[in-house]
């Protein structure tokens, strides 16, 4: 890899491994974002969208009955209460403000669970921009309510039939579409993944989760949590909450990947336990691949975690030992979803349920503080949950 590491690298991970046609559009995006993030007007517009459209700040909820059951003090950061029902909207309002600033004529996005697609469609409708969302046909079948929501919000949903018919293939198709018309099109990428500047930009837009949560728990408890837990698909909700705590050396950061139905290739999406470094969709990071460098199929009960690569900043946080990564099985995630419903009256997304499942394995002393990012709500998963 490159020796003179400039921006866009997280230690050895990250970079910009894309076809030539996309290099200049990425340079243009990088420059536009660098100027926007320093501009007080852009910052004020983003703040206003977050407060009045997204519904921020989201509350921090003390999970009393769950805490009693686990012998811990569990706090939930309620991203499920944002408009459209998941943290994804924090990023899409930011990127769509940037699309308007760059005078782009339309936006495109990839989606897995459909939450990013819905959040992009909503923010695009509000900005008056046409929106096209690429989605694998397998995901369209298992997340049908979100397909209907995207269409209600005026987006065109393009079914992707190639490869594994999930998020990986939807992302390839979105990159192809962007490379055909980058002059007019803004690509709203949904996770802390892809070529530079996306991993940093998406983290910045999601960092509002961590900034709020840190202040909220200090106010409520007068101290920082012992551990912060979040599920990791591409890794945007987790990097969003982790980023505010990275400098707090005493706070453990734990990401939870999809353990699926077993450790054999194709049965999970646990990149750190089953993968190795490689390049996919423009970034060098941990990847599920075979001995020939072909990307492996993945499985997770939650469409949002069903992706073969992890955000490059997570790969670096793990390399330097600042964060650790566990995984939770389909079965344990389902159990955790039902448990939160019954004990706390909250229906979590199957993605977030992986973080909740980890609580049963957390090695904390009795009564210690643990903060969980409840990244989304589970209405979209009722079909799977009630099956």
């Amino acid at each position: 890899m490159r020796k003179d590491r400039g921006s866009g690298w997280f230690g050895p991970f990250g970079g910009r491994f894309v076809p030539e046609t996309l290099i200049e559009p990425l340079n243009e995006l990088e420059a536009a974002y660098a100027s926007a993030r320093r501009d007080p007007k852009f910052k004020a517009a983003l703040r206003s969208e977050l407060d009045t459209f997204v519904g921020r700040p989201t509350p921090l909820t003390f999970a009393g009955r769950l805490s009693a059951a686990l012998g811990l003090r569990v706090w939930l950061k309620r991203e499920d209460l944002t408009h459209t029902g998941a943290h994804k909207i924090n990023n899409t309002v930011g990127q769509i403000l940037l699309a308007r600033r760059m005078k782009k004529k339309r936006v495109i996005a990839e989606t897995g669970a459909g939450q990013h697609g819905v959040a992009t469609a909503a923010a695009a409708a509000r900005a008056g921009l046409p929106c096209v969302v690429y989605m694998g046909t397998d995901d369209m079948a298992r997340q049908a309510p979100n397909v209907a929501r995207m269409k209600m919000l005026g987006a065109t949903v393009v079914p992707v039939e190639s490869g594994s018919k999930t998020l990986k293939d939807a992302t390839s198709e979105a990159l192809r579409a962007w490379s055909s018309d980058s002059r007019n099109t803004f690509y709203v990428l949904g996770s802390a993944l892809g070529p530079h500047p996306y991993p940093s930009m998406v983290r910045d837009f999601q960092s509002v989760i961590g900034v709020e949560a840190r202040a909220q728990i200090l106010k409520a408890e007068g101290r920082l949590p012992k551990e912060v837990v979040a599920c990791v698909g591409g890794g945007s909700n987790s990097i969003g909450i982790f980023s505010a705590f990275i400098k707090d050396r005493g706070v453990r950061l734990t990401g939870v990947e999809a353990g699926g139905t077993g450790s054999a290739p194709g049965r999970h999406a646990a990149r750190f336990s089953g993968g190795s470094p490689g390049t996919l969709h423009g970034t060098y990071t941990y990847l599920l691949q075979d001995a020939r460098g072909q990307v492996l199929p993945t499985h997770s009960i939650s469409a949002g975690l069903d992706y073969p690569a992890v955000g490059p900043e997570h790969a670096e946080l793990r390399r330097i030992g600042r964060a650790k990564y566990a995984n939770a099985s389909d079965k344990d995630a389902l159990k955790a979803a039902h448990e939160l419903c019954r004990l706390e009256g909250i229906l979590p997304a199957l993605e977030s349920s992986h973080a909740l499942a980890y609580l049963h394995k957390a090695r904390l002393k009795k009564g210690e503080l643990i903060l969980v990012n409840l990244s989304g709500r589970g209405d979209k998963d009722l079909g799977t949950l009630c099956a």
Partner: protein
Amino acid sequence: MRLTLAKALRARRAFGRAGFVPFLVAGDPTLAQSLVAAKLLAAAGADVLEVGVPFSDPVADGPVIQAAGQRALAKGMSLKKAIGFVAALRADGVTIPVVLFTYLNPILRMGTEAFARACKKAEATGVLIVDLPAEDSTETEGILKKHGLELVLLASPTTTDERLKLIAKANGTAIYYVSREGVTGVRKGLALNIADRLKHVRRMTKKPLMVGFGVAEASQARALALHADGVVVGSALVRANYEGGPGAVRRLAKKLIGALEI
């Protein structure tokens, strides 16, 4: 000593036609049929052969080459076997330059050094890595060069003059100009202002220039022949090979070669 890309393309131009650069996916639809097609293209007058290495996630490719890659992968094709494909061509007397057209990840997995050694042993001429931009290619290029392999760099309609200068200065030995935005595939007509754009790229670099993406018909090849050292035809040949077999490949190649006279 085999011909370099520059020598092969310039020699052909001296004889009054632009270089014909066919592209095939190794192992599509079977290893045997792709070998037959590659050999007959060489015999028909190809000047450089591009051998596509299938990848599970080909973001620069359109539907025709995506499908070809999936067929080849399903039959067990890999980077290692694609290098073996080149060795088989050499063993059968194919002497024109052969370039492996691949994505980065299979090379990283094999290890760049091991990859370069294997390519040298198979007598490949060079490598084109679709998703390795010039900024990041220095180290790879050094390893390839050590083993006597050329690196083909890409330029596109969105490449700025600043980056064209960088690409001209980089050690890559030839330039593949992507004639239009988007992905590989058969298209009608040519990109707007392509002639002016190619003249401009010519002024920026002395490296031999191949042009491709969307070239399927004789009329397109004829128009591009005036402004480039080589014209790459991919999807149209891949489709001919899959749907019509060797006869269809031979007929299309003949038509295209005729159109490249200048």
